[in-house]
């Protein structure tokens, strides 16, 4: 029996269901203190003095400021610009200045209110426009974290020869990840034992990398363990390095374990969000409506520090031309600095922003050209043998047309498109149906995977069970289950014979971060290869034949361990020869492969209240081999719900660079009543370099819903909509504009 392709039950499902799974706040260590972070009230300035007002006995508190840092005061990631604690310069609201610990969690809140910061304020930058003006300069020499340029063909002359030119500007807002469990860690840090962290996180080795310079300790003195994690969505990719460092600094000074758990308000106001973006697109078409030139200007707001913005920008840039072919392409992109908390990783990582722009633009062009939006798209789709915007030749077979056809048939697209126009006439509620077509490259961009050089291992236990050792985390998306399925098949044993070891940098190799759907596609493949490596050892030791039963395998493992010793297989990533990326020229095979998708949204807009609801949603995608259909479907459904939030509901309201609506009652995430039935269909075209034949699928449902939903609203309302979230207030303003 094979396990890949079956809906095996979640490995950790039972303990989660019974409430036995231990999340970080369920853990308590003896002598443990609680820590809090006291943060900047303003966006930009110079810290002059910290005053401790009377009202508590300050001697009972552990206080940590930048001066207490034993090593280097920066959060090691890509650049070294972000301090753990403000030394003098404050660059965003809620920036950490002071850490407090006490054994009574509640008195900390009282102490927090008795801290007074004396700050000399400096002029801040809050918008992309202000950042571009460079008045003032708040980061580097020009407020720019990173910029990219892509040039192919001759855009200028294509524009001259064009039959028609069309231009539009598109904007997307910030979005909060809203994992169920807020950020939290426990640290034990002292000179003798070094630093140990247990926490809710996606990437233990990122935390590890950050703590080494913070404490100036050798890497083996730092240990990071992932506790059960209640969701991440990218929000626990880089941020846990910050909170872990803070807890460790307090523990270092207190010489006792310290726990820091953010409450929802702190998590929302102080941690990362999706990068807001602005994209200007100019397109040229010939008289047959073929796209002949594409000029894209893509800008994202990175917040106050560089963090991952350069990589987010890269993915956004490389996806900016969508699934369309044009022989002339010019793309300029940049990530800019503003005095808001740094924006960071969030499911899709830059692609939802640029794909929103191109898919909205193509819809706009179809309407301007008076063409059927489906036919128009098909005319311009990238084909096998053509070159994508990033310069990548499409070498593999693609099923884009079949994906689109399936979406159209399942949703009855053409019929509804006609019917709604009629029924809308006499109703205050206008129905629409809209399509978005897109692709998403899984795994790290360009040579990223080569640099990571991830390692995965499998190990036999004396009982004949197989343990999987990777640093990839289970954060609700199914890591444990799919790894077990892949290993079971590679070893030809049972799913129940496999156990996934808790990610702990003291015991697991660095298989890279849990991001970008690379866990399934890249690390899954490594798990398979490591399994085969282990099997080969048994065969070489003549304890196993090429063909064997499960029983034979188990006894061979036991025998090997008894007679020879440790039985372990491992595998390290090597880029397949078909992937060639030129970092200097910034072009080539940006991704090993792409998943392709067509999403359809059916919406109703009440023209009396300007409220839009999504009535039904169809998500059709080709994702390579589907490893676990139930988990895969769950990923898509959950993601589409998050995408609906991104499109219509979730608006971060900024006041002086600070999120003003940092509560779940005023940051509006859709509820079950706001999310419709979501139909999920998979097409499979196994990718031979992906674990079990998989590509990635986790990001697709954040890419597609917003353009599909706005396209449906445009169909219903006959207006052009170019920004998300399209809240009722914004829709009303747009409709008024048009009626003027």
């Amino acid at each position, binding site marked *: 029996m094979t396990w890949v392709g079956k809906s095996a039950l979640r490995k950790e499902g039972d303990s989660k269901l019974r409430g036995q799974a231990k999340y970080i706040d369920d853990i308590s260590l003896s002598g443990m203190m609680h820590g809090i972070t006291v943060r900047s009230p303003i966006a930009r300035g110079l810290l002059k003095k910290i005053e401790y007002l009377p009202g508590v006995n300050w001697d009972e508190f552990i206080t940590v400021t930048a001066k207490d840092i034993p090593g280097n005061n920066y959060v090691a990631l890509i650049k070294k610009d972000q301090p753990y604690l403000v030394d003098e310069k404050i660059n965003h609201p809620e920036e950490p200045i002071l850490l407090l610990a006490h054994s009574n969690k*509640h*008195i900390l*809140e*009282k102490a927090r*209110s008795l801290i007074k910061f004396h700050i000399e304020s400096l002029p801040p930058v809050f918008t992309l426009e202000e950042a571009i003006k460079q008045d003032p300069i708040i980061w580097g020499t020009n407020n720019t974290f990173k910029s990219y340029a892509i040039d192919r063909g001759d855009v200028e002359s294509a524009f001259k020869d064009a039959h028609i030119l069309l231009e539009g500007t598109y904007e997307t807002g910030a979005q909060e990840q809203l994992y169920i469990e807020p950020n939290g860690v426990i640290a034990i840090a002292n000179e003798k034992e070094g630093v140990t962290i247990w926490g809710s996180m996606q990437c233990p080795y990122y935390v590890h990398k950050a703590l080494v310079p913070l404490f100036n300790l050798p890497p083996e003195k730092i240990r990071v363990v992932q506790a059960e994690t209640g969701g991440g969505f990218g929000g626990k990719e880089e941020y846990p390095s910050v909170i872990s460092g803070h807890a460790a600094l307090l523990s270092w000074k207190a010489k006792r374990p310290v726990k820091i758990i953010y*409450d929802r*308000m702190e998590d929302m106001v102080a941690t990362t969000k999706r990068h807001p973006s602005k994209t200007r697109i100019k397109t040229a078409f010939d008289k047959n409506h073929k796209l002949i030139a594409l000029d894209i200007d893509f800008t994202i707001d990175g917040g106050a520090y560089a963090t991952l913005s350069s990589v987010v920008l890269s993915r956004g840039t490389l996806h900016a031309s969508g699934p369309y072919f044009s022989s002339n392409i010019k793309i300029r992109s940049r990530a800019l600095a503003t005095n808001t908390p740094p924006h960071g990783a969030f499911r899709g990582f830059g692609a939802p922003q640029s794909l929103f722009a191109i898919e909205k633009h193509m819809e706009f062009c179809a309407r301007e050209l008076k063409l059927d939006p489906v036919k128009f798209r098909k005319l311009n789709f990238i084909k096998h043998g053509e070159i994508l915007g990033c310069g990548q030749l499409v070498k593999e077979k693609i099923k884009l047309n079949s994906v689109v056809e399936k979406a159209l048939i399942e949703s009855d697209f053409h019929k509804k498109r006609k019917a709604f126009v009629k029924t809308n006439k006499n109703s*205050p509620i206008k129905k629409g149906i809209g399509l978005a077509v897109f692709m998403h490259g899984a795994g790290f961009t360009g040579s990223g995977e080569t640099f990571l050089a991830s390692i995965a291992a499998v190990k036999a236990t004396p009982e004949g069970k197989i343990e999987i050792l990777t640093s990839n985390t289970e954060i609700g998306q199914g890591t444990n289950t799919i790894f077990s399925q892949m290993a079971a098949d590679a070893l030809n044993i049972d799913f129940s014979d496999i156990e996934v070891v808790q990610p702990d940098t003291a015991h697991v190799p660095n298989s890279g971060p849990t991001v970008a759907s690379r866990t399934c596609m890249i690390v899954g493949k490594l798990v398979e290869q490591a399994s085969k490596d282990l099997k080969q050892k048994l065969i070489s030791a003549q304890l196993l034949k090429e063909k064997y039963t499960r029983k034979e395998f188990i006894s061979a493992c036991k025998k090997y361990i008894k007679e020879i010793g440790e039985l372990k297989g491992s595998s390290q990533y090597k880029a397949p020869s078909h992937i060639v990326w030129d970092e200097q020229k910034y072009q080539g095979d940006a991704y090993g492969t792409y998943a392709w998708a067509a999403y359809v949204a059916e919406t109703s807009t009440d023209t*009396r*209240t*300007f*409220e839009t*609801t999504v009535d039904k949603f169809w998500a059709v995608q080709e994702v390579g081999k589907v490893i676990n259909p139930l988990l895969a479907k769950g990923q898509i459904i959950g993601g589409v719900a998050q995408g609906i939030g991104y499109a219509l*509901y979730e608006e971060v*309201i900024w006041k002086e660079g600070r999120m*003003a*609506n940092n*509560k*779940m*009652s*005023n940051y*509006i995430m*859709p*509820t*079950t*009543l*706001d999310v419709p039935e979501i139909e999920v269909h998979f097409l499979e075209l196994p990718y031979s370099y992906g674990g079990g034949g998989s590509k990635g699928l986790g990001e697709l449902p954040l890419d597609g819903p917003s353009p599909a939903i706005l396209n449906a609203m445009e169909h219903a309302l006959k207006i052009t909509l170019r920004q998300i979230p399209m809240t*009722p*207030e914004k829709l*009303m303003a747009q409709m008024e504009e048009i009626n003027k």
Partner: protein
Amino acid sequence: MRAYLPDYSFHRAKTLTEAFSQLEAGAKPFAGGTDIMVLLDAGALPPDNYFDILAIKELQGIRSTKKALSLGALTTYSEIRNHKLIQSNFPILCASAREVGAIAIQNRGTIGGNIANSSPAADLPPGLLVYEAQINLISKRGLRTLDYTKFHLGYKKNELQKDELIHSITLKPEFQKHHHFWRKVGSRRSQAISKTMIAALAKVNRKRIEDIRIALGSVAPTAVRCLEVETFLKGKILSPSTILEAKKILSRDLHPIDDIRSTGKYRLIVSQNMLEEFLCGIG
């Protein structure tokens, strides 16, 4: 939890007498706690002494006589939703209770708390205004009854004195021949604070409006009866131009503001559109 708990105290009052002495000592009533706990969690509740009133019999339950229905201050949204007589006589109250928060809040939140909290965005007041409810307040000094229209004085301000509790709400079932209309516009379908809401009643005889009452919430410092519009519409036969005029007049009764949830302009236009929806439905 951002509050420092030792700064607060909490007792349970089992009888009205106990409650009165708590009030006398300066303590504050705590019913379902669904407004109070939000503030406490955010560290926005001033340290104080609280007393739980949930066990006080006199404040519990729905009582009906031929002439009136009395809703004890501790009546929950769920009790309102499920009550046969409220469903048939005061459907706006059922409809609005059904849209408060979600089930857990409906099981816990009380009508007394909703009224005493005096938020302009509270969902029950517009319905109580159009049904011309009476509110009964109790203290050591005795029971006093007010027209509900007189109760709310301004943003988070009301007639309740320091020594008083809300005792109950009295409703007279005299609207069998009326059209009842309720619409809440929040930011999503559940767990939503209203951006604007309308409760409206009308009795129409041969197309002529004999009686009409309109109240809106979230568009002024308190829920408001739209008396100017009512006066204008009374006795009229509805036509597109009367509706247009009514929408214009409505803007005089409202003072919506921009806040974190919406804009004043949106609230005004949508309120006008809801009025139109109501009027189109009765014409």
